[in-house]
C-alpha cells in the first residue's frame, strides 16, 4: 500500500489504518498521519494548484508553513473549506478535494492559464478591464478567484469553547527548547503552561538520532512527565496565534475534524518563545514544480510519519544544519545527491512523476528535490508583542533583538540552532535568567534571489508571485515593502508569507542595491495561522448576543397567552391572545378606554436619588425645575445632553425631602444610571448624593381606564383613591397583604391610571389579585402595542421614536424652563445656539389624513426637500380613524396647513394639527 512508508520511522500508529479519498480516489493512511503525509506516503505528487496560473503544486512542507496543499475536506457530513492538508490530522472516511482545481489537482482544466502568464503578471488588472466598464469583467474574475468552496450548511454544534486563563510562565512551542524551558520553570515552582500545535509535542527532535543521549521519543515523554509531575500543564494541538494589548495571548485549541476550536485568552507573567525556525525556499527557475520541497519538511515527514519522499533524492542546501536532515534521510535508505545551487545555470524541469534538474549542461531526474535556503526563526509573536529585530549576517536571518517586557525567545526562534546550546539557553530562560546569545557553529552561504537572472522563479508559491513580478514592481516604483506586497500580492497568501517574505525582501533589496535590513520587514499581524471565524463565537451567541432582560411576570404572561417581543431591551408582552394581532390590539385599546386595562410596566426605571444635595443635583440634571417639588408629588421632565438634545423623559417622584425616585424610560435605565453617576462624581459632592438603581427589585402593574379606581378599590388598600384626595401626579405608599407597595397616579395612556409597584417576588400574587378584582369590570390585560397606540392618541412621545438626536424640549412645546429657569442645568447653553433658535426646527405636531393610515417614516416634502417625517402612525381604535405624530419644520406655527407626504415615490396630502387626539382637555386624565 504505502509505497514510501519506512519501517521503524515515524510516530503513526500502524495498527490503526484509516481510509480516505482525495479528488475522488481512495487512499489509506494511519492514525497520526496528516492528510498530506498520508498522500505523500501514497505517492501522490500533485496536491493542489496555484491561485493564478493553476500550476500544479506538490507538498512544500510538513506543517503550517506549507502554502500549497489546500483542500476542502468533508467527513461525517461536515465540510470545511481551505484546510491545510499538512496540519489536518487524518480521520477515517475523510474526503478531500483540492481547492481551485477541477476535476482534480492532477488534471485541472484551468491548467492552460499558465500559457498566458506573460499577460497576467503583477498588477495586470490595474491596467486593463476599464473599458467599457469593470462590471463587464468582474463576475468572471470573481469566479476564477477564491480558493475553496463553502458549503451552505450550518454546522449545528460548531461553537467555540472560550475561556480565560493565566499562568506564571507560558512556553510557546514544545520542541527541545520549549520542553526544557517548561521543565526548568515548573521544577522551579512556577505555574507553567506549555502549548504546542501538534498532537505530540517534540517539535523537530524526532529528526535527531538522540537527545541528551536518549531516544527522542523517550526524551520527550520524560520531559512531559517531569513537567506534569511538577504541576505544569501541556496543551497539545494548541496554537498561540496572536499577542494583543497588555500581553494577552490568544490560544487556539483544535480538536477532531469538524469540532469547533477552543479559545483560551491567556494571561502570562512571562512568555518563553520556543517556536523554532522555518526552512526557506531557494529561488531558481521552475522552483515551484511538484517534487521540489523543503529539506526540513521532508525530514519531518520521515521523523513524524515514517514517510520518505523518495529513494533518489537531490539536496540543494547552503547551510550546515542540512547535514542533520541528510543523515536522517540516509538512515532511512535514501540515496542523496548533493547539488551546489551556486553553479549556474541551474533550473528544474518536468514534474509529473519525477523532478528534473539541469545544471551546467547536465540533466538528471530525481524522485524529489529537497531544498533548503537557510533557517528563518519564527518571530511572529515576538513582533506582535512589539519586540524589535536585528539582522544577523552570520545566520542570514532576522533575530529577536532587545527583549520586550515579559517575553524571551530561545532555541531556533532565537537563532540558537545547536541543540546543546539551545538546551542550556532553555534551562536559563525557564528559571527566569536571560542568557546571552552564544557564538554559533551554524554557517550559511548567503543565497538569495538574483534579479535579472533567467527563467520563471517563484517567490510566493500559492499566489504565483515570481521574481519577474518583483522586478516589474520595482521598475514601476512600487518599492516600499508594503507597496511591493500589495501590488504583487506577495506574502498575502494563506501561509501569510511564511515561505515567501524573506525571498521577496531579499529580491527587493538586491533590486534597490540595499541590504535586507535596509529594506525592512512587513508587519507581522495576527493570526499566526488562519483561525476559524467561529473561534470568536463563544457563549456570546444567539439569545446571549445582548441578552434580553426578563420580566418577573414572564411566566404569568406566557400563561395568559402573551405574544412576547423585544421592546427596549426587554422581552415584553406585545399583546395577548392568538388572533390577528391588529384585532387583538384594537380590542385591548377599546377595553382599556371603556373599562380597564392591566399593563406590566415593570421595566420602567426606578432610580433612588438620595442625600442632602439630591434636590439640587436633580435640578441640575433635569430641564425642569425639581427642587420646588413637594413631598409626595410627581413631575414629568426631560433629561438633556450637554448638547441640549433630549436624552430621556420620565417622571420624578419626591419620596421625602432627601429622597427622589427617577423613573426613566425602560430602555435607558443603565444609561441614565451611568449618566447620573458621572455627574454625581464629576462636578458635585458625591458624599451628599447617592444613587441606587433599584429597578429590578420592583415589578409594576399599571391599572388604567375609567374603571381603574374601582379595581384598585377592590384590593382593600387603606388609602383614599378619590381623585380629589389622591390627585393625578402624586404618590401614596401603603401595604398590600403585608407587603409594601408604592402607588403612583401617573398616566401614559391618557386615562386615569395607577402604577402599583411591589417587590418582584410578590408580583405574581398582586397581578393575580388585580386580574380577579378586575374581572367584574371587564379588565383586560394589555400589551405594549396597545399602550403605544393609546399614548399616541394622547400625543405622548416615545423618546427615539417621536424625537430624534436633534430634538430639544421647545420642539415638543415645553419651552418654559428654556426661558425661565435661572439655575444651571445640563444642556442649558446649547438651547440658545443659532441652530436651537432656528425657525425651521422640526417640531412635534399631529397629522390627520383623509386617505387612511400615513406610513411611519414617510416624509413631509416641500419644493423637493424634506421638511420632516411621520414618527408614529396608527389606526386609532378610540377615534375610529388614522392618527399620526410628526416632526415638521416650523410645525407649531403651521396648524391647519395641508402638507405633502412622500412615501417611496408616492405622495398624498395631510393636515397639520395639534399632537393630541384624545381627551384634549384632560378631563379623563384627572378624573
Amino acid at each position: 500500500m504505502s509505497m514510501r512508508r519506512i519501517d521503524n520511522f515515524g510516530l503513526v500508529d500502524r495498527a490503526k489504518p484509516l481510509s480516505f479519498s482525495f479528488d475522488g480516489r481512495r487512499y489509506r493512511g494511519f492514525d497520526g498521519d496528516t492528510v498530506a503525509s498520508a498522500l505523500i506516503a501514497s505517492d501522490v505528487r500533485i496536491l493542489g494548484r496555484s491561485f493564478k496560473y493553476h500550476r500544479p503544486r506538490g507538498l512544500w512542507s510538513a506543517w503550517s508553513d506549507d502554502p500549497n496543499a489546500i483542500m476542502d475536506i468533508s467527513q461525517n457530513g461536515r465540510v470545511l473549506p481551505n484546510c491545510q492538508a499538512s496540519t489536518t490530522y487524518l480521520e477515517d472516511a475523510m474526503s478531500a478535494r483540492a481547492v481551485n482545481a477541477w476535476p482534480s489537482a492532477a488534471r485541472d482544466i484551468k491548467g492552460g492559464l499558465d500559457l498566458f502568464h506573460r499577460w497576467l503578471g503583477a498588477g495586470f488588472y490595474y491596467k486593463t478591464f476599464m473599458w467599457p466598464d469593470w462590471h463587464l469583467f468582474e463576475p468572471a474574475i470573481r469566479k476564477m478567484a477564491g480558493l475553496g468552496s463553502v458549503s451552505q450548511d450550518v454546522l449545528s454544534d460548531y461553537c467555540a469553547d472560550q475561556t480565560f486563563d493565566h499562568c506564571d510562565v507560558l512556553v510557546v512551542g514544545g520542541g527541545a527548547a520549549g520542553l526544557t524551558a517548561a521543565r526548568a520553570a515548573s521544577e522551579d515552582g512556577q505555574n507553567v503552561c506549555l502549548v504546542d500545535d501538534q498532537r505530540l509535542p517534540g517539535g523537530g527532535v524526532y529528526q535527531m538520532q538522540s537527545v541528551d543521549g536518549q531516544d527522542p521519543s523517550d526524551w520527550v515523554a520524560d520531559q512531559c512527565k517531569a513537567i506534569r509531575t511538577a504541576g505544569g500543564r501541556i496543551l497539545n494541538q494548541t496554537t498561540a496565534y496572536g499577542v494583543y494589548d497588555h500581553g494577552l495571548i490568544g490560544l487556539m485549541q483544535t480538536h477532531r475534524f469538524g469540532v469547533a476550536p477552543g479559545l483560551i485568552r491567556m494571561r502570562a507573567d512571562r512568555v518563553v518563545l520556543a517556536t523554532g525556525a522555518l526552512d526557506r525556499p531557494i529561488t531558481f527557475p521552475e522552483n515551484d514544480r511538484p517534487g521540489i520541497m523543503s529539506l526540513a519538511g521532508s525530514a519531518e515527514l520521515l521523523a513524524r510519519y515514517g514517510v520518505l519522499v523518495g529513494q533518489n533524492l537531490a539536496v540543494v542546501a547552503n547551510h550546515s544544519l542540512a547535514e542533520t536532515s541528510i543523515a536522517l534521510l540516509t538512515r532511512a535508505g535514501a540515496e542523496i545527491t548533493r547539488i551546489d545551487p551556486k553553479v549556474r545555470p541551474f533550473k528544474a524541469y518536468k514534474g509529473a512523476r519525477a523532478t528534473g534538474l539541469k545544471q551546467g549542461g547536465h540533466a538528471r531526474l530525481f524522485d524529489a528535490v529537497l531544498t533548503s535556503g537557510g533557517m528563518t526563526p519564527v518571530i511572529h509573536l515576538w513582533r506582535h508583542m512589539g519586540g524589535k529585530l536585528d539582522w544577523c549576517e552570520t545566520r542570514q536571518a532576522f533575530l529577536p533583538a532587545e527583549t520586550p517586557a515579559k517575553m524571551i525567545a530561545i532555541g531556533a526562534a532565537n537563532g540558537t540552532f545547536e541543540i546543546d546550546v539551545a538546551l542550556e539557553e532553555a534551562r536559563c530562560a525557564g528559571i527566569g535568567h536571560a542568557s546571552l546569545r552564544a557564538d554559533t557553529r551554524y554557517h550559511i552561504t548567503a543565497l538569495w534571489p538574483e534579479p535579472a537572472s533567467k527563467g520563471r522563479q517563484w517567490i510566493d508559491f500559492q499566489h504565483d508571485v515570481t521574481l519577474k513580478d518583483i522586478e516589474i514592481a520595482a521598475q514601476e516604483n512600487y518599492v516600499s515593502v508594503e507597496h511591493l506586497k500589495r501590488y504583487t500580492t506577495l506574502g498575502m497568501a494563506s501561509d501569510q508569507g511564511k515561505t515567501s517574505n524573506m525571498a521577496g525582501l531579499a529580491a527587493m533589496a538586491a533590486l534597490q542595491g540595499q541590504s535586507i535590513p535596509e529594506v525592512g520587514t512587513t508587519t507581522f499581524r495576527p493570526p499566526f495561522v488562519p483561525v476559524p471565524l467561529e473561534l470568536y463565537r463563544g457563549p456570546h451567541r444567539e439569545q446571549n448576543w445582548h441578552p434580553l432582560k426578563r420580566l418577573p411576570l414572564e411566566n404569568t404572561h406566557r400563561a395568559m397567552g402573551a405574544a412576547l417581543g423585544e421592546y427596549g431591551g426587554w422581552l415584553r408582552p406585545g399583546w395577548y391572545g392568538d388572533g390577528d394581532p391588529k384585532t387583538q390590539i384594537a380590542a385591548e385599546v377599546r377595553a382599556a378606554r371603556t373599562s380597564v386595562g392591566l399593563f406590566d410596566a415593570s421595566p420602567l426605571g426606578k432610580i433612588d436619588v438620595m442625600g442632602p444635595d439630591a434636590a439640587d443635583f436633580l435640578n441640575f440634571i433635569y430641564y425642569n425645575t425639581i427642587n420646588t417639588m413637594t413631598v409626595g408629588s410627581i413631575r414629568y421632565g426631560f433629561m438633556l445632553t450637554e448638547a441640549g438634545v433630549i436624552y430621556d423623559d420620565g417622571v420624578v417622584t419626591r419620596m421625602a425631602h432627601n429622597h427622589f425616585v427617577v423613573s426613566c424610560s425602560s430602555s435607558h435605565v443603565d444609561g441614565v444610571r451611568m449618566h447620573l453617576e458621572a455627574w454625581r462624581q464629576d462636578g458635585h459632592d458625591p458624599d451628599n448624593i447617592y444613587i441606587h438603581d433599584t429597578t429590578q427589585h420592583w415589578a409594576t402593574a399599571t391599572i388604567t381606564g375609567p374603571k381603574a379606581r374601582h379595581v384598585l378599590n377592590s384590593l382593600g388598600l387603606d388609602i383614599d383613591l378619590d381623585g380629589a384626595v389622591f390627585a393625578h401626579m402624586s404618590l401614596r405608599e401603603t401595604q398590600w397583604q403585608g407587603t409594601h407597595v408604592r402607588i403612583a397616579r401617573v398616566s401614559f395612556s391618557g386615562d386615569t391610571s395607577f402604577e402599583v409597584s411591589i417587590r418582584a417576588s410578590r408580583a405574581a400574587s398582586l397581578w393575580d389579585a388585580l386580574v380577579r378584582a378586575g374581572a367584574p369590570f371587564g379588565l383586560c390585560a394589555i400589551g405594549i402595542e396597545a399602550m403605544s397606540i393609546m399614548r399616541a392618541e394622547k400625543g405622548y412621545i416615545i423618546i427615539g421614536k417621536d424625537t430624534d438626536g436633534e430634538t430639544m424640549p421647545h420642539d415638543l412645546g415645553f419651552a418654559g424652563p428654556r426661558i425661565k429657569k435661572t439655575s444651571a442645568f445640563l444642556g442649558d447653553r446649547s438651547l440658545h445656539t443659532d441652530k436651537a433658535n432656528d425657525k425651521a426646527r422640526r417640531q412635534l405636531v399631529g397629522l390627520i389624513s383623509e386617505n387612511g393610515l400615513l406610513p411611519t417614516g414617510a416624509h413631509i416634502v416641500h419644493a423637493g426637500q424634506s421638511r420632516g417625517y411621520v414618527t408614529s402612525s396608527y389606526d386609532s381604535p378610540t377615534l375610529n380613524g388614522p392618527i399620526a405624530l410628526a416632526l415638521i419644520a416650523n410645525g407649531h406655527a403651521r396648524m391647519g396647513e395641508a402638507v405633502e407626504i412622500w412615501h417611496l415615490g408616492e405622495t398624498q396630502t395631510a393636515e397639520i394639527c395639534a399632537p393630541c387626539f384624545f381627551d384634549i382637555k384632560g378631563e379623563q386624565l384627572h378624573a
Partner: protein
Amino acid sequence: MSRYSAWSVFREGLRKGKGWGQAWRTPTLKKAYDVVIIGGGGHGLATAYYLTKNHRIKNVAVIEKGWLGGGNTGRNTTAIRSNYFHPESAALYDKSVQLYEGLSRDLNYNVMFSQRGMIVCAHSVPEMEMAARQCNAMQINGVDAELLDAKQIQHLEPALNFGASMRYPIHGGVLQKRAGTGRHDAVAWGFARAADAAGVDIIQNCEVTDVIIQNGRCTGVNTSLGEISAGVVGAAVAGHSSVLADMAGYELPITSYVLQAFVSEPIKPVLNAVTLCPPFGTYVSQSDKGGLVIGGGLDRVPSYGQRGNMPMQQTVLSAFCEMYPSLAKVKLLRHWGGIVDVTPDSSPIIGPSGVEGLYLNCGWGTGGFKAIPVGGYLLAHLLATGNHHDLSRPFGLNRFVSGRLIDEAASSGIAH
C-alpha cells in the same frame, strides 16, 4: 506616463514588461511650491490630482511620512456608498460615488469600483420604520434607494441568517444599488500616478515636523527633509489631524480611535452585496479575490495604536457568525486597525483651519475611503480659490459653534 489599456498589457506581455514605466517618480524635494499637501493618503493624492485637473495648479507637493496610501487608505473595508439621510451628506457622498463611477477611466487606472449594492438591514418593526424614513430621505435627496422586505433580501443575499435562532431576525432593509466596494490601494496608486504625470511631486518618507506660521499665516512646513515654503497648505492626515493641529496651533473636535477590519481566506463567491446589520454593528462584503471583508464599530478605547485588539474582534466576529452562520467555518486570515478621526457628529471637517493659508480635510471617521474623490475635489477647490465649494460649506469647523451639526446617527432616531 505610458497609457494603460488592454493593448498595452498585451504589448508588454510580449516584451516581458520591459516598457512599463514608473507609476510615479521619486522626485527631489524643491524649496517652494504653490501648494503643499500634507498627507499622501487617498485624500491628499486626490487633492493634488484635482488641483492639476480642475484648477491647472501643478506646482504641488504631497508630503507623506511613510509610504503613499499607507494610512487608512490602505487599511479599510473598501466600501463606497452614499446612503445618507441629511441632504448635505447625501450631496457630498453622492458626488463621491459619481466621481468613483468614472474614476478608473479618469485616472487610467482600474480601481475596480464594483457596484454590487449595499443593504442596510432592519431587524424589527421600529427599525423598519426607520428604514422607511431613511429610504425616503435618500430618494428625496436624489440618491437611489429601495426598501426591501425580508424575502427580497434573502433573494439578494441567501447566505444571511434567516434561521430561527438568529438574535435579530431580518425584517427588511434599504438597498442602494450604486453602492459597492473598490480596490483601496488602487485608488491611492491611481491618483498618485495621475497626479505625478501632471507634475505633482509626491515625496514619500518625509515627515512634517512643524508648520511654519508667519504673521498668523501658514507659509510652509518644516520636514525631515528640510523646509518647504508654500503658497497654501492643505492637511489631509486622517488619524493624526490633532497632532498636526497641535503643531499649527489650532484646535479640533476630534478623538482618535482604532477601527478594526478583518479578512478571511479567499473562497469562491458566496456574497453578492455589502451588507450591514446595525444592531450587530457589523458589515460584510466579499472582495474580488474571494476574501470576506468584515468591519465593525469603533474600538472602545481612544488610541493611536495601529493594531487590532481582542474585545472588538470578539464582538465583530461573533456578530459575523450570527449574520452568516454557514460562513463561520471560514478562516480569518488577517486583521488590522486604522486610526480614525472621530468628530462629535461623525461628519467630516472640510474648510479653513483657523490659521490663514492652511485648509483642512479631516474627521471622516470610519468613512473616509468612500469620500476620497470628493474629499480631494473639495480641498483642491479650497486651496485653489480660498473659498468653500457649495458642497463643503456645511462641513466647516464653524458648525460646532452654531450648533448646526450634521449627525446621521441623530436622524436615525438614536438619541444621545
